């Protein structure tokens, strides 16, 4: 510690402390009082208000400030780790029973040639979210909505577990088919389009983004067009709408054809 020096009294401790304190006070006076007050902002009124604003205290918005709400139902599903925790073999069994009423369109083992989505091996979280969205009305379908109306949360988890359990269609992209389309591999950065593959597989995978390998081309293209037109809007924070709106019809077709490719 800084005791008295051999040559006399310790002047360093008080001097350095005072200098540092003075610097702090000077910086604080400028940063917390002077600068906020000279800003041409009506929100800052008086010294105390200036200090609070500069300290980062956030005011709640005044009541007269309207909050813009979506005019349509939006997805209520929140993705947190462990969302689907607790499913087991029994869930798969229950899901298999419940799935009997889905077979007409989605096939006996989750695969069907009817241009409806193949559900076999789909990520459970993607199935669960879509079922929830059909039920809440965030995603609109004349066929699906009556079918999910009676499903409980448990039913949806079980269905998700069952379909996730079924073997999925593997990716099929032989070298003879050439390189994947640019939109899948690189997106279009200047139009703010991330690569499809960054979320939907090939490059990486993100939470709740569905497995798209082997899905019907007609279905994929129709969904992209629906996102672009805004008729489908259950994507969180309009991620897919923003992407699809910027895509050209040719890119939509290329992406759909790429993922629909199967053996």
């Amino acid at each position: 510690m800084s005791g008295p020096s051999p040559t006399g009294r310790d002047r360093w401790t008080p001097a350095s402390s005072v200098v540092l304190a003075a610097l702090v006070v000077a910086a604080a006076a400028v940063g917390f009082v002077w600068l906020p007050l000279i800003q041409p902002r009506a929100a800052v009124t008086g010294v105390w208000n200036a200090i609070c604003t500069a300290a980062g205290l956030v005011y709640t918005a005044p009541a007269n400030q309207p909050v813009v709400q979506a005019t349509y139902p939006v997805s209520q599903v929140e993705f947190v780790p462990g969302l689907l925790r607790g499913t087991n073999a029994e869930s798969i069994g229950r899901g298999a029973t419940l799935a009997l009423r889905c077979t007409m369109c989605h096939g006996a083992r989750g695969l069907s040639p009817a241009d409806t989505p193949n559900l076999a091996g789909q990520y459970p979280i993607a199935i669960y979210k879509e079922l929830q969205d059909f039920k809440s009305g965030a995603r609109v379908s004349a066929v699906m909505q009556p079918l999910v109306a009676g499903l409980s949360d448990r039913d949806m988890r079980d269905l998700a577990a069952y379909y996730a359990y079924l073997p999925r269609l593997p990716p099929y992209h032989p070298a003879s088919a050439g390189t994947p389309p640019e939109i899948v591999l690189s997106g279009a950065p200047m139009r703010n389009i991330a690569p499809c593959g960054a979320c939907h597989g090939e490059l990486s995978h993100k939470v709740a983004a569905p497995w798209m390998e082997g899905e019907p081309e007609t279905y994929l293209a129709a969904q992209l067009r629906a996102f672009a037109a805004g008729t489908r809007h259950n994507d969180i924070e309009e991620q897919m709408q923003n992407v699809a709106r910027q895509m050209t019809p040719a890119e939509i077709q290329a992406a759909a054809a790429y993922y629909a490719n199967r053996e």
Partner: protein
Amino acid sequence: MSNNRTLILVHFWLGFIGFGVALLLGAWQMFARSPMHAWLGDPELYYRSVTAHGTTMAYVLPTLVAMGFGYFVVETALRQPLTGRHWAWAGFALVLVGTIAAVVPVAMGRASVLYTFYPPMVGNAFYYLGVVLVVVGSWVWVALMAVNLRLWKRDNPGKPVPLAMFAVTAGALLWAWTSVGAALEVLFQILPVALGLTGTINAGLARVFFSWTLHAIVYFWLIPAYTAYYTIIPRAIGGRLFSDQMARLSFILFLVVSMPIGIHHVFEDPQVGAGFKFTHSFFTALVTLPTFLTVFTICASVAVAGRLRGGTGVFGWLRALPWHNPLMLAVAFSFIMLGFGGAGGLVNMSYQFNTTIHNTQWVTGHFHLIFGGAIVIMYFAIAYDVWPHLTGRALDSFGLMRAQLWTWFVGMIVTTFPWHYVGILGMPRRMAFYDYTDPQIAPEAPYVDLSLVGALILVVSGILFLTVLVRGQLAPRVAPAAYRFSVALHEPRSLPAALNSLGLWLALMIALTVVNYGFPIVHLIASGGSVPAVIVGAAR
């Protein structure tokens, strides 16, 4: 030199081997996003590489150099055998295990979160545990530096602490305190998510904790370089240190004002109040003081050497300097890069200017010029200077050393100057690829190509560096004279306690941290604001 040569050598070797690998990754990154390479199909590969490059260069290399150099200083400046050598080996083992634990998940693509972590992205737990082990290993070193200094003081009451020891201990204590921020972030915020105990994270708070570490870590990297300026260079070029007290004052100022200023890294973050951003900007400006003191003192010391060697006149002493001496070249290059990098840093730290270049390639240019340039070139100089004393073998590839330093200097300039320029044009940093066919980006293409050329020159230089060291390891045995540090023009006989111990300055550093960080941290904890974590690279 004592029997702890092996201990010190393994620190340097592990650091430099990591440096070699990370250097290749860096050059590949430059290539991958240059117009010379087609768009990288998988951007994740790029981020994986950036994470490995940053983690190795920012955490592993400087920590090991600081540790090895610190032990070296204990033995040579204090002239006492290192107390606690078993602890030192344990610390090294922690760093080694931590490095491996961190690099494996990164290589597997499970932790591509970049070395700045960026919550709410969360990677594999082993990555963070690895980084924690590296830091804990370095804390062992911090404790050993303090213990050894205390033992020396007990045996030498009232004597001035040798400057080299004073400096490296200041660096150690600075590191001990500055690493606390990231440690809090990793232990209390990130690891609970990485281990699956919780799914949300207060990202704003985490970023403030990281800023606590992120700025002063630069000064931890820098202190071995500054120690070399003051205690090696004047001796190596045949001069005297101009002022011992000025040197101590610089290290003290670094200790006090370099630590609680990190919020200038989060100028664009909405969760921190503008008042704190201003005060941190203000104190960042004060860090220029110890740097200017150093530039003055070292230039004066070099001038003394020039005049002792017969140089006269206003500029004549410059010609008389031993330019064939690699250490002379190193310090000159280091100062030039420090000058440009420091000037760029003034732009970064300014609350207003920063908006122009925030998160652009300018920032990458800045810290490569300061750290990769000014600091790392002094790591090379330190290695060249101490190597014969560690290996007991001659290190005489002087031509190679000069070539290495020249190529590092030229390579770093050619890499970073274009980065600064394209940063001003608006090129964001940390992007895996650019569409150079776009008319808005096309003008940047030739400059990116130029920085790729710089990166390749740096790779050549890195190879030369490792070649010199390996040749030193294989050279015939010699018996080097006892290692000496610089002697000051006026060697201190007695010093006021404030210039001979660090307690007062530590207290001021902690007090200033409380003032500058206390409210934002408490406020962010109290106001909550956790968001769902984004797990990187996990199969779902």
